[in-house]
């Protein structure tokens, strides 16, 4: 028997797990939305609202184009780099459009996340991507002058040196 406001209550830790976000990031989203719960619990409806309003997206779905590109590449790190760029393009993240940085990791397993993190570092280092802080966390965007270069990575045509080192060493 469902009890209103009781059965579907989740702790912030449980809600974070359900949303695939670190609790500290969830808290920043909640504070930015003016929805931080004093009892540190959210119900299912609130969790869904946070997912939508907070822009918490899961990009690496089995049927996503980025996932398909990732799986098609015989070299795992290169596949993740290409798939990640496909995801960024698919989501239209050319500056000034941006999205939460952690969206890039959601749906990847632990090993793939570690590689994706290294890919991101390389792309930020090369200036292809730009990260910046927002009230609800860190966002990422493709630097406007590097849209073509990100496309080339996605298609596997050209890779900046710092990125290629990830699978050539």
């Amino acid at each position, binding site marked *: *028997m*469902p*009890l*209103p406001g*009781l059965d579907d209550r989740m*702790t*912030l*830790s*449980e809600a*974070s*797990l*359900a949303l*695939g*976000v*670190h*609790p*500290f*990031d969830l*808290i*920043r989203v*909640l*504070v*930015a939305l003016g929805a*931080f719960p*004093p*009892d*540190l619990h959210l119900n299912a409806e609130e969790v869904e609202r946070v997912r939508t309003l907070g822009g918490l997206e*899961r990009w690496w779905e089995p049927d996503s184009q980025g996932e398909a590109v990732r799986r098609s590449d015989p070299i795992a790190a290169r596949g993740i780099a290409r798939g990640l760029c496909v995801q960024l393009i698919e989501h239209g993240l050319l500056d000034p459009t941006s999205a939460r*940085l*952690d969206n890039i*990791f*959601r*749906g*990847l*397993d*632990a090993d793939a*996340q570690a590689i994706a*993190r290294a890919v*991101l*570092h390389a792309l*930020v280092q090369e200036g292809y991507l730009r*990260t*910046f*802080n*927002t*009230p609800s966390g*860190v966002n990422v965007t493709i630097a406007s002058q590097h849209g073509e270069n990100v496309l080339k990575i996605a298609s596997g045509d050209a890779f900046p040196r710092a990125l290629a080192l990830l699978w050539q060493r």
Partner: protein
Amino acid sequence: MSDDSTRDGLAPEMESPALLDALTGIAAWRERAEQEANAAVSELRAEEARITAALGELQRRLVLVEERRAQTEAKLNALDDEELLRSHQALLTALAHDQSLLLARSGAIASLRAAAKQRAEVLLRDDELQGHLREFASFAEVEATLKSLPPGYRRAILAHHDNVRRVVEPVLRELRGDTVALTAPHAPVALIASVEPSEGPPQALVILTPVSADLQTTWDQQPQDLCASVAYRVMAAAAEIAARLGAADAPIQARPYGRFLAVQIWLRDRPVKGDVKEIATAALQRAKEQARDLSAAQVELFILWLPAAVLSPPEDDEDEGSVDEDTEDEALRMIASESVSDDRLPDFLIADPDTEA
């Protein structure tokens, strides 16, 4: 003229030449004088030796006094550092103490919650109560139709619903955990806050919590206890503080401070509105007032402001081992790091229920 005068007025004959007598006298005098002088010289030499020895002793004491004065002056000069070091050690001890307290109270609260759940389960065995609960749960649908009903019906339905609510309230209170409250003594727990630098435009605000730094990576492997409650509330307060300072987009990071969790707001290069300490104290105070779970555990949060130097004290060569080197390193990194504002990539695994499974 003496009676010895000769008749012819001449001096009487002496038994030995006068000069000899004189010389003999002189020799005797000389001998006496020499003995006296030798005796005096010996005495003076002895005195001289005594004085020299005394001087040596005084000189030695002078050196000792000079050394002690120098040491005392050095101690005096080192009092600031010593004070910082002792304050830092006290800070670490207090964090460890408060962490133990939070863990102990978390355990006690968990037991009380389990007991409340058991009581609720016992109550829920009552079929009649279950019927009331079903009715109570379905009231939302009824409520939507109330407006269309005549006032008399509406009043009757609402009165009935109030009765049902009174009946089910005890079990709801158990399920919500409203009955959970420790009878343990009131326990203060400190949050340590610090602004860097102490004077001038603030560059960073740090809040140290008595929560294990491991929470950052193990939050999904443990229940949300009082330690998590403190950490989550501090993070929420930090976000609120940044927003109220007009720096909502300032980097806010949870980082290890030794084995404890610290939350820091990097304000560098951001013009802030208002007084950082005032705004932070108010936000943390609000967080404390909202924390019913901590009240139920008889835990009260206190906010203590310390100079940033206490968080990263000078190195102490004399008292090795008294300060956890890792802690010190972390503190220094935390306060002094220039690169943190560029460290924007998350350094944790994004939890995902699907991939976790």
